[in-house]
């Protein structure tokens, strides 16, 4: 008896699926139990991949050049150059005031006192905070020369508030400043490659961590702070981003020329470099850092009732709607 055509087709499809699943399983199992490649096999693989890599690199660069030419052929949007301290910002004319405000806030609050950074003097920041899709701004080379560009191009769909925009600006400025310090210098190895820290996060972790060094530091013992920051043993018991805060505090204390002094001492022990930049001893640097961190300690309360209040608010809102209907009208 022959089966109807749709049924046969369905059975064939099921058989194919089952076969596929079986072979898939066998493949995966074979892959897992396969012995690791030998040295000869690895060498052959590396030799085969070398020319392919070179060919792919050439193709990628050609494709990127083509795209750059396409972008260059598009009409250029007018831009304006804004100067905030040593920061040069290229932005749209209608956002020039906003850029000056946001960069000004970040510069005053976080980087005030950093002067003489070669990287900052060299870089240009491209800023826009668009309501819709972000079209990258093209920088007019006649105004900025061949400066390296650090882009902060945000859409309000993701960066909704000025706080978020400021945080992104802060990260970008720190990334540029950080590039002044060679990664393999002693100072560079100590500060690592982390982003600019949230002061509140650092404050919370410093004050809640169970480390003895942290506790000693909070009690005002300089050696505790030095140990907590990894300046004596290399082991940090505070979040590694805290190093950025110490560094900027030291520069702030040192005033004019502090950044240059810091860079001069980049291969000295980090604590010595900080003291050299700040122009005070280690006690002074640690005390300034601790004071800055504690000043940012967030007001925290236990979460008792928060959820209850939210539930109550929603219930009251819905009840308000309900009481406006005929059946539940109170008045």
């Amino acid at each position, binding site marked *: 008896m022959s089966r109807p055509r749709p049924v046969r087709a369905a059975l064939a499809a099921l058989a194919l699926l089952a076969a596929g699943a079986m072979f898939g399983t066998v493949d995966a199992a074979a892959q897992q139990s396969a012995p690791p490649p*030998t040295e000869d096999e690895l*060498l052959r693989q*590396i030799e085969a991949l*070398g020319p392919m890599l070179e060919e792919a690199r050439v193709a990628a660069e050609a494709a990127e050049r083509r795209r750059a030419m396409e972008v260059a052929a598009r009409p250029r949007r007018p831009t304006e150059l804004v100067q905030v301290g040593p920061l040069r910002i290229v932005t749209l004319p209608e956002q020039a005031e906003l850029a000056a405000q946001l960069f000004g806030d970040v510069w005053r609050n976080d980087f005030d006192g950093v002067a003489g950074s070669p990287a900052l003097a060299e870089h240009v920041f491209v800023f826009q905070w668009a309501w819709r899709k972000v*079209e990258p701004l093209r920088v007019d080379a006649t105004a900025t020369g061949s400066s390296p560009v650090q882009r902060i191009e945000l859409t309000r769909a*993701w960066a909704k508030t000025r706080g978020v925009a400021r945080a992104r600006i802060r990260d970008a400025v720190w990334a540029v400043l950080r590039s002044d310090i060679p990664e393999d210098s002693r100072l560079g190895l100590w500060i690592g490659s982390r982003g600019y820290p949230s002061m509140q996060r650092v404050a919370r972790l410093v004050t809640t961590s169970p480390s003895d060094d942290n506790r000693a530091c909070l009690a005002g013992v300089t050696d505790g702070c030095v140990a907590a920051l990894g300046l004596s043993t290399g082991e940090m018991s505070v979040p590694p981003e805290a190093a950025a805060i110490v560094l900027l505090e030291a520069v702030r204390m040192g005033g004019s020329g502090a950044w240059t002094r810091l860079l001069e001492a980049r291969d000295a022990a980090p604590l010595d470099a900080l003291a050299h930049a700040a122009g005070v001893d280690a006690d002074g640097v640690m005390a300034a850092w601790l004071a800055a961190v504690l000043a940012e300690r967030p007001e925290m309360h236990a979460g008792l009732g928060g959820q209850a209040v939210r539930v109550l608010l929603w219930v009251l809102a819905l009840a308000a709607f309900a009481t406006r209907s005929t059946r539940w009208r*109170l008045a």
Partner: protein
Amino acid sequence: MKRWLAVVTGSMGLVALWALPPSRLELPPTQKLPARLRHEAIEAELRRAHAALRALRWSDSLPSLAIRAAVDGVALGPPRAESLEAEVQAWEEAQRATLAALRPRDPDMVLGVFWQPADEATISGVPIGVRTRRVTFVGEHDGTPYCIHAVPYLTEPGARALLRHIVDLDACRLYAKYGAPGERIQEWLDASSLGFARVAVPTFAADYARLQPAPRGTMRLFGLSRPLYADQNLAVQACLAGRPAACERAVTDPQLISPQFGDEAWVVANSPASSFGGGASHPPFGYLDDGLLYELEARFGAEAFARFWTSTESVPEAFEAAFGEPLGEWVLRWIEGHVGLYRAGPSLPWSSLWLSALALTALAGVATAAGVRRRVG
């Protein structure tokens, strides 16, 4: 429509517009071109093969060197540079002091810590993965078990800074104390890339859990929050929802405990390297389980831990025989103690449901009372 209703509805619409993410993700035109993605994929393959080659070459030479050079079961190979003499001396003293303090100590196990220039035994000009990550080799050479750390360094200043950090033996500490594990325990350790013994601090999970930030996001507006590790495998989520069988699977299934990210996962699977130090968090519980074995050792004592470590049974059976309780149930209590459990399913927290019922009852009472008064009046 009444004006207040229009205002409320309009306001809610605005809040929703503000709070919701865009309906489709538009990447900026700076995204990578397919040709660049292909270049990166080939480079990754090359990087990994090269890293596996280096690991293979190092593993060919280091175990025999360690066994030949070992004094009291320990071979130290500091960086070779005259300018580092003082740092090297301090490092060697710290290492020997750490090892001398280990109790118990297996007399057969050879330990080695060797500093290697990162490009030792590599091919010049070819990119390499996991270049500066510490490598651990575990195995047996001519019948002698070994656990070796190879520490790559790039420059002398870098080595000087690192010499102060690298004083801990991490996973090798357990090998030093209890010797070679049972065969099936070793298979389990291999599958996890020694991931449960990365940090030799028994209180690591407690410290780590305490330092986690509170859950964030707009979901909090509605009194909801996603559980920690919500992006992990379903078995992990089921474990967090209080199911012991899922907990057992989460910490024993090779698919769920092997490294998942970057070059490390490939190199561990395709070379003699057992593990790489540092790097991204590993499944199943991210960084939280990095000190799990040390926590077990501290909680149940060296004798029970040695029974587990050297058992020839499977991990769940060895666990129950050594520690007296099923693995799944212990892991469940462990994770509950550190991050808490959550209720699985699409429902509100109990507190919200009870409070809602309570508030509705109270409001119904008020409405009824008001209605009754009006009729009487």
